[in-house]
């Protein structure tokens, strides 16, 4: 590759990075005299799936080309040359969020600000029928001049008909995938909302939300484990922000934020609260929802949602002191232990007569009447 000086009309200036799908170069477009980021896929790497790769790449390019927004990396051009398919994109000066989080944490308001911008970008893409499907810190670029941009609509697909679970192709990064994405069912914009919720959680707490030894374990955690409120790990997180994160991280997409703009609006309120400012009026009508793909029923819970209810794990409330009861459970007395582990007993006649007023009245009056009747009969 180093010998190749040009791809299409683009002059290669250097390598910017390598991803799972291909290499990203710094390149020059001589026609417009501008420097771009050129993302390539080496099609010959996978001959069997070449046609599928080509199709995916073209879809990606067309989808990304529709998106012109300050919080989305602009796509200029796409094409193929030999064994390479390429995509020319806006070249950004900055650092990606993953690197930033590794180097140092983010202030709470900065984290929310970034999430607002990403949500705005996603909202714009969703309105145009494009779902990113791989929102993660590595795909969010923090610009030197400020602001955040969503990169790599590399697996973004047109929402309607091209999801191919039958081929076993699951797209995305497990740690940031939504439960429905892991389940392999059709996803919509609410999946991106979940992924952004995970990113926001990690920005706020500096800790991974869904960790695991392998992908299977992470997938299990994504679908089953309820998150701990971020305020427990970061005291600066307000209860309002806890709620916003919780709503974005709902396992059931039907009860999650229905679109990214709605999420952004609530985040702006949190940001105003954090910065001690009155909430600014949002530019958009926040009650507006993006029309869902026809195949997706918003009322229909994701297949994983059912399992969640059955494995309820609830955290102790911080508002109420439960130490006395927990102490009692930790070291119950002999008698207390019996009452704490014994299932309910059947209530026998004797206990019923002794402790239940109705049967007691019937028993005593019958006994007295029987005695009186006997006296009358035999006395």
């Amino acid at each position: 590759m180093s010998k190749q000086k040009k791809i299409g009309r683009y002059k290669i200036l250097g390598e910017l990075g390598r991803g799972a799908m291909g290499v990203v170069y710094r390149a020059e477009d001589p026609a417009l005299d501008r420097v771009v980021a050129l993302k390539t896929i080496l099609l010959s790497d996978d001959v069997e799936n070449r046609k599928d790769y080509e199709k995916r790449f073209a879809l990606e390019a067309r989808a990304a080309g529709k998106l012109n927004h300050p919080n989305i990396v602009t796509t200029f051009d796409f094409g193929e040359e030999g064994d390479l398919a390429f995509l020319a994109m806006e070249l950004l000066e900055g650092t990606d969020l993953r690197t930033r989080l590794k180097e140092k944490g983010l202030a709470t308001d900065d984290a929310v600000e970034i999430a607002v911008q990403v949500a705005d970008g996603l909202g714009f893409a969703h309105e145009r029928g494009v779902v990113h499907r791989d929102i993660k810190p590595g795909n969010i670029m923090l610009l030197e001049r400020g602001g955040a941009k969503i990169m790599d609509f590399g697996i973004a697909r047109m929402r309607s008909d091209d999801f191919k679970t039958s081929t076993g192709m699951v797209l995305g990064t497990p740690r940031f995938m939504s439960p429905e994405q892991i389940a392999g069912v059709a996803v919509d914009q609410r999946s991106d909302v979940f992924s952004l919720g995970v990113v926001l959680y990690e920005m706020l707490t500096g800790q991974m939300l869904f960790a695991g030894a392998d992908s299977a374990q992470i997938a299990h955690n994504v679908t089953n484990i309820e998150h701990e409120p971020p305020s427990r790990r970061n005291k600066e997180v307000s209860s309002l922000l806890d709620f916003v994160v919780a709503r974005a991280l709902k396992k059931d997409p039907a009860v999650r934020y229905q679109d990214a703009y709605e999420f952004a609006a609530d985040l702006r309120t949190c940001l105003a609260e954090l910065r001690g400012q009155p909430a600014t009026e949002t530019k958009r009508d926040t009650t507006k929802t993006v029309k869902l793909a026809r195949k997706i029923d918003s009322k229909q819970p994701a297949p994983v949602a059912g399992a969640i209810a059955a494995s309820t794990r609830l955290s102790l409330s911080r508002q109420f002191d439960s130490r006395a009861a927990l102490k009692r459970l930790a070291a119950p007395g002999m008698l207390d232990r019996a009452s704490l582990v014994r299932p309910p007993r059947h209530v026998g006649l004797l206990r019923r007569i002794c402790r239940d007023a109705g049967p007691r009245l019937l028993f005593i009056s019958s006994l007295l009447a029987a005695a009186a009747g006997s006296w009358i009969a035999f006395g």
Partner: protein
Amino acid sequence: MDSSYVASVVFLKIQEFASRAASEQARQRAQLEAVIAVTTADLAPASRVVLDASDGAAIVVLANPAGALRLAERALKASAAGLPLCAGINHGAVRVLGSGMGEAMVGDGIAVAASIAQFAPASEVRATRAFRDALADAAPGQEASLVPKGASSDASLRSHELFTRDRAELQRRARTYRALSTAAVVVLLASGIGWRVSQQGKDAFFDGLAAKYRATTAQGERYVRGLVDKAKFQ
């Protein structure tokens, strides 16, 4: 701390919580916390654990099903001030997770309470058969106030027999027992009389009864006179 225990779980659910704006959710959560603070005041601190749920709260009540039912009812009353609350009560296994004083609780007791709370309309409580049995064990007779309200299947396709609170049922039951007691008294006395009549004949029985009455009355009169004389001498 690793053991499982059996406890009553009151799951207080804010209806349609997830669909509300975050600011409204925060307001309702604060309201719910106030309601829980008021309603758990009757319970000893050593007999209740309060847990956070995404759309409400769960209160695990140890060895006191009647207290759990009271708590649920009081919470629903306190929520009349605009908090759309409903409650599910179950009696089942719970377990503390985490080290030290614990961080979370799990168990079927909690899961089923959360599940049946979904079937409860606003300001109403739904209880399981297990809770009704536990209430009967702890306070025999009180379980009568939980009347059947159908059955529902949760997301895991488990079927739950549901009961709801009907205080009037306790009064109806008390009236029924009073009527039964009266009937028993009448029947037993009548049986005694019937037996005697069948043995002695009607006239002999009533003559004997009249004689006994006269004798008893005379004896009573003598006794009263004696008391009056005693009082006069003093």
